[in-house]
């Protein structure tokens, strides 16, 4: 008999371990490669035969990245600042907007609730690229073109966030809400001091998903920005990689760029993965 979620290592699991270990090594190779490449000096990057691991690590590529951005007129810190600022605002606003809406859709009563829930579940199937052009026009008409708002606003409507949070809130017993109301608290009080603490794992998951989407978002810089100084890190790194693809320093630079984009995502996920798994367990479509 198969045992799920076993407590200790048993010889039954050996086959799984062998398979998963081999697969993990295979999956992690490109990431190990990129880490090694970003520390390789020129001589090793273009050595023949090509070598996978770095033998004399150097920070030359990181210095070069700073140097390139300084030469292009804007310091790298400007792009980093733009990215950090917009990502922070996007995460905080998404959490606020999504949790409020999820609370409304889960626990409050109003006309049109069922319809809204249905449309939102339908919107899970939404392919953002399919409406990139109308969005472009809407952003332009709203008058936020070429401002920070154009980075932020398109990221805020997140059906999957509402969906995850609502699934969690549906499971919070109504008695808790009643109790809080007896104490004289209104909906806001219930929302703030009962609901939000109860759905923390889902909030963390939404924060992570939002971070991944916003931190890697290069489209808004390409489509909605004219000023270079308003563009974000992923856009800059994308163009840098595209421009320097053919020059000798390109390989090292692009490896560093990839690392800079990838590492924050990975670290965040490692720290918070327990909570993510928790909230994913409740992902039921009803």
């Amino acid at each position: 008999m198969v045992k799920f979620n076993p407590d200790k290592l048993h010889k039954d699991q050996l086959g799984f371990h062998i398979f998963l270990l081999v697969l993990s090594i295979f999956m992690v190779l490109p990431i190990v490669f990129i880490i090694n490449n970003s520390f390789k000096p020129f001589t090793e990057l273009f050595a023949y035969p090509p070598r996978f691991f770095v033998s004399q690590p150097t920070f030359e590529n990181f210095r070069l990245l700073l140097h390139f951005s300084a030469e292009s007129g804007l310091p790298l810190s400007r792009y980093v600042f733009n990215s950090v600022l917009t990502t922070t605002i996007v995460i905080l606003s998404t959490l606020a907007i999504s949790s409020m809406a999820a609370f409304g859709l889960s626990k409050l009563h109003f006309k049109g609730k069922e319809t809204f829930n249905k449309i939102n579940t339908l919107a899970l199937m939404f392919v953002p690229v399919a409406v990139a052009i109308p969005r472009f026009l809407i952003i332009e008409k709203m008058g936020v073109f070429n401002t920070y708002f154009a980075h932020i606003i398109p990221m805020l409507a997140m059906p999957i966030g509402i969906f995850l949070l609502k699934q969690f809130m549906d499971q919070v017993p109504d008695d808790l809400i009643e109790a809080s109301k007896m104490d004289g608290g209104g909906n806001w009080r219930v929302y703030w001091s009962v609901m939000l603490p109860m759905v923390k794992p889902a909030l963390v998951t939404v924060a992570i998903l939002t971070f991944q989407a916003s931190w890697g978002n290069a489209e808004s810089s390409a489509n909605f920005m004219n000023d270079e100084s308003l563009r974000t890190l992923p856009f800059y790194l994308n163009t840098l990689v595209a421009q320097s693809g053919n020059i000798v320093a390109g390989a090292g630079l692009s490896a560093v760029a990839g690392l800079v984009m990838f590492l924050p995502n990975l670290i965040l996920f490692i720290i918070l993965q327990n909570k993510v798994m928790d909230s994913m367990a409740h992902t039921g479509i009803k």
Partner: protein
Amino acid sequence: MESSTPINRKLKPGLSGKTESRFKRVADSPYLFIMPYAILFLLLIVLPVVIAAAMSFTYFNTVEFPRFVGFRNYIDLFTGDTVFLQNAVPNTLLYGIIVGPFGYMLAFMLAWMLSQVTHRMRTLYTVIIYSPSITGPVMMAVVWKVLFSGDQAGYLNYWLLKLNIVQEPVQWLQSPELLMPIMIFIALWGSMGVGFLAMLAGLLNIDRTMYEAAYIDGIRNRWQEIFYITIPSMKPQMLFGAVMAIIGTFNAAGMAATLSGGTPPPQYVGWLIVDHANDFGFVRYEMGYASAVTVALLCIVILFNKVSYKLFGE
């Protein structure tokens, strides 16, 4: 404000009491909770879909006002656009039909295996298997281009030459036959995303007594166990994973261009519907036509989702 209210109440208790309760009612209204999202949802999801649908019946070059052309764009799209019919649609379907279901089955299989090892090792494997899906396009350009490169820097060619499997370097990324399989391979490598996490969590939350009961009822092997107990017990997560897999595959764009180093890629190999829409919309500024392409894509996605709801929905 705070000091003025009690004074007011003393003077006109009835009136101020009424306004206060009305204020309280408005402040406490359910609509206030959903309003921010509802506005954004209408503005960024519903309205764009409506506009895209409307625009697809026009000629619109972003400079002049859109001109109504009826079904012209759709007629052109389905009768005259050879790149769309011979490259974008077959490529997208091929890519979607392989990456979608295989990625999905792979996700379930891996999640199933992971659910049967101990917690500490499972965490480690999960982080590693999930990490490719968050690497992003920069990473793809950096790693895979170098690995498959046709010149002396290419790792794969070097190894294959050394092992005597090939006699001369293969132009992996420029070859019409090889580019698509490489795209599919990379997509599968990075397909263990949110859906995979949901399935893993779903597996771990199945009540263990279900299995014990099933064995008493005469379930004999693992296959029966998977099909009669495991999958039915985690239908919601299976459906969620399917929806995410479909969206992920149909959202893919720009891979062929990144890998081969040019837009469009040689002979439109690996050219997907989204690439086609981006090309007409943001390169040629034929917004009406591009909208028709995106409406067609949206229809395909909805169709595929309907199928997955039929399979996994209640």
